[in-house]
């Protein structure tokens, strides 16, 4: 008994000595200050939320690779971990040319869209549709991309083709969304709510349609309905980050920061999440909390800049405007963002930044955009 305790102590001291040695070796750099040797072999260093997907057979076989990549993408979505999209992309590297099999081109477009490389995604989808004009998923993805880029007229054509592909639910939601962005918000909203009242689907597509309805409600100035739609969407797919962020924004607009923070509880601290936490903390009015949340967001942005990864321009512009009160930087970022995405929310942001930075030219640009598309949005103040 005494002997084992002694042995245990010796081991502890040895470990301590080793740790000190390594700490000394690393002391030259403050960046390595957190280095240590865990106290026990049983110390858990990482808990995986799911077993790591492995390629069971030949990874040069396109259908095996596609299945593997799909698994990785699904995991990335459910864990909100961007890394899995990088893994999936690498798993499909052998088919990076134009002649990639259709299922692989679709996956590559999905990855590109997720990483905000909209041009790449569009090129891939164009290639698929040239080869298979009835490919429903490609049509729907392309329609969404066109809408995100403020081109509802182009989107409509793809939406209509979904009917002939037998996807009437998706086609109706798609057309409603495109129409709502093109001068007929009320008609589109009525169409969509009627569809939703008769739908018993309950799947991912249903949740997507609820998100579209919420976006329309927001533009109609009806934040209560927007919240109801989004809570339904989250009941169907509780882990969907886009719905979580959308609901957080609605709650922040209504001045309910406590509820907004509750939505994001337990969500990995990515830039979009940190921005909303900082906005909520600011609204709550506690100086110390607001500063801590602000610096957490800022350090995430700085880190993204440092490692040269894609910045979330929409979030960055909003933070520069609402948190840093740097209207000129916000305007520059919002303009960069405008080159990539042109949803109503992007227009609102650009207009707000342009007004704050006193740039009538840009305000005029947003006004012209609104008039060309005939977009209705109660939240867009010009």
């Amino acid at each position, binding site marked *: 008994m005494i002997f084992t305790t002694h042995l245990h102590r010796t081991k502890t001291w040895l470990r301590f000595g080793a*740790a000190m040695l*390594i700490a000394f*070796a*690393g002391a*030259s*750099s403050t*960046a*390595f200050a*957190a*280095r*240590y*040797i865990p106290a*026990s*072999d*049983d*110390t*858990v*260093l*990482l*808990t*995986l939320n*799911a*077993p*790591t997907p492995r390629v069971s057979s030949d990874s040069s076989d396109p259908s095996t690779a596609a299945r593997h990549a799909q698994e990785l993408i699904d995991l990335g979505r459910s864990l909100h*971990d*961007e*890394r899995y*999209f*990088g*893994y999936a*992309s*690498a798993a499909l*590297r052998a088919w990076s040319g134009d002649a990639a099999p259709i299922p692989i081109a679709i996956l590559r477009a999905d990855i590109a869209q997720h990483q905000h490389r909209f041009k790449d995604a569009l090129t891939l989808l164009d290639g698929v549709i040239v080869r298979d004009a009835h490919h429903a998923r490609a049509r729907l993805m392309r329609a969404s991309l066109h809408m995100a880029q403020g081109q509802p007229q182009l989107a409509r054509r793809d939406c209509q083709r979904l009917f002939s592909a037998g996807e009437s639910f998706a086609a109706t939601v798609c057309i409603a969304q495109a129409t709502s962005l093109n001068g007929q918000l009320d008609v589109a909203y009525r169409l969509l709510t009627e569809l939703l009242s008769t739908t018993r689907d309950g799947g991912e597509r249903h949740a997507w349609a609820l998100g579209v309805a919420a976006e329309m409600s927001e533009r109609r100035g009806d934040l209560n309905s927007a919240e109801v739609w989004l809570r339904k969407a989250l009941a169907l797919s509780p882990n969907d980050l886009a719905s979580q962020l959308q609901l957080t924004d609605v709650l922040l607009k209504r001045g309910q920061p*406590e*509820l907004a*923070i*509750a939505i*994001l*509880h337990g969500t990995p*601290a*990515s830039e979009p999440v*940190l921005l909303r936490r900082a906005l909520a903390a600011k609204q*709550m009015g506690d100086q110390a*909390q607001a500063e*801590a*949340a602000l610096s*957490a*967001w800022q*350090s*995430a942005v*700085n880190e*993204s800049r*440092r*490692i*040269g*990864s*894609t910045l979330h321009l929409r979030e960055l512009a909003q933070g520069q405007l609402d948190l840093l009160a740097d209207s*000129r*930087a916000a305007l*520059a970022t919002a303009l960069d963002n405008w080159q990539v995405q042109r949803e109503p929310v992007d227009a609102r942001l650009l207009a707000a930044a342009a007004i704050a930075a006193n740039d009538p030219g840009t305000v005029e640009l947003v006004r012209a955009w609104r008039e060309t598309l005939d977009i209705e949005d109660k939240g867009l103040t010009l």
Partner: protein
Amino acid sequence: MSTAARILIVPLLWIFAAPVAAHNVGVSYVQIVTADAELAVHIDVSLRDLEFVTGLDRNGDTKITWGEVSANFPSIAEYVVQSLAIARGEQRCSFGKSQLAIDTRAGESYAALILQASCPTNGAVRVKSDLLFGFDDSHRTLLTVRSGQSEKVAVLTNTAREWNESTGASAAFLRFVGQGMWHIWIGFDHLVFLGLLLLPLLQSQQRWTTIAGEVLHIVTAFTLAHSITLLCAALGYVNLPSRWVEASIAASIVIAAFANLLRVPVRFGILMAFGFGLIHGFGFAGALAGILEASTAGAARLVPLLGFNLGVEIGQLAVVAAVFPLLFARRGLLMSQRAIAVGSLAMGACGFHWLLQRTVLS
């Protein structure tokens, strides 16, 4: 739990669990410290990435323990050593034995490898890394090379896997030149001020070479002045509140506009260019501080600073070179005193608006 109770508890939870930002891509870290022919190499690779590459979770219980990591040490070390090539001069360095520890970065556990590398010669360091790039298209490797007091930082990506001590530095320099040019382009108030100083030259009846000489004088005086204060502020010798600086820049525009309306001589314009240039320099320093990391201090700021300043000059001269000949060609229409007055009034009004915005309205 009732919703009300949840509302009360949740905010407390997230505040105490200090949020650590997750990376939006996979990141590994390679730090090289040079000491003569020996190199100390520190490599941090995320356990999640290693699990994906080498399969750390031996018992398949989705928990990765220190025991599993150390049992996998040989395969981890082999993978890392094979993925990383370091050379000095043209000669490749060879790795010695490695040690293993754990590091925490962005809230995540990393396997930390410490290696010694010995190199045949003492030349410039070159690094090529394939670490993780075979498995993750978005992966980033943050490379730090320290020798003595100097530290160089680079980011390696799937499409740019190599770094060279000499070219790395010039790429960083060029990046700051670009930032400087960008700033002058979006920092409209600097251009308005310069425009006001140059505007009176349009009524000059001199030959174009003489006028070009006067443009050069004014631009050089402005450049000289803002370079001095940019240098002082960026190196931390002088520190002024940015609100005060921004308001003074706006005021300088108003004053320059008045000077034009009062038809002060060109020589006075050169004086103003220098005097107010000093204030504009503090404005540039503020923009530069936004780009530089807080950790970059002292002499390490010198290269970015020079690059940024050079970029500002290039951007400024490019605008002057593009706009002035145009105005000059049209001076038949513009040279009347009235046109100068209207231009000055318009720009002065801009300045006055900015002044209000930055003082009483903010």
